[in-house]
């Protein structure tokens, strides 16, 4: 799965993108976040304040979104443009 990180989350994870092989039991966006936070403290730190959004193929989704047809998942803090 291709993962993209932006802004503060990108800085904490220290990567703007990566490709990760996800285990079979990762079905939802919530599963993904749980998987990452258990994988490394760097993700745990990035997501600890729960103040982030997940976009699957450029659509913001909830934590119960099924990711099996998703090509690209972006994780980012609340937007501050405009």
């Amino acid at each position: 799965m291709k993962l993209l990180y932006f802004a503060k989350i990108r800085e904490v994870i220290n990567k703007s993108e990566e490709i990760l092989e996800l285990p079979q039991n990762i079905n939802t966006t919530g599963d993904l976040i749980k998987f990452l936070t258990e994988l490394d403290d760097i993700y745990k730190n990035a997501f600890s304040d729960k103040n982030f959004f997940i976009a699957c193929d450029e659509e913001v989704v909830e934590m119960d979104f099924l990711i099996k047809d998703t090509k690209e998942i972006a994780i980012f803090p609340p937007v501050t443009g405009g």
Partner: protein
Amino acid sequence: MIEIKIQSKALNISNEMKKISKLNADGATVTFMGSVRDLEYENLETLEIEYFPKMAKKVLNKTAKDAYKNWNLSRCIIIHRYGKLKIGDPIVLIITSSPHRKEAFRANEYIIDFLKTNAPFWKKENTEKKSYWVSQKN
């Protein structure tokens, strides 16, 4: 007519307005321009804007289309900058035209409100000493 631009180069407001002036038989045109402000307790050196290109383009396009349809616009232009900006630099320019002013106002405000809470852009303030990611407010 819908036009969306996301660019790192400076926003030339007067050029955009010159274009508008040439074909402005629309009755009412409302423009919103958001610019870089100085900080309250420190001096801002630069404002850096990061964005998610593919999604930003999608969100701005959809926002413009919704506004265009809902308020019966004759024109809708959204330009957003990314990269390093200085105090006073325009960040965003939104132009909405309609035969009636209420529609042009409502559409313009809808676009900037929606953009501020949904378009994937992030601001970082760099001062002499530190850098801060701007947090969302309203």
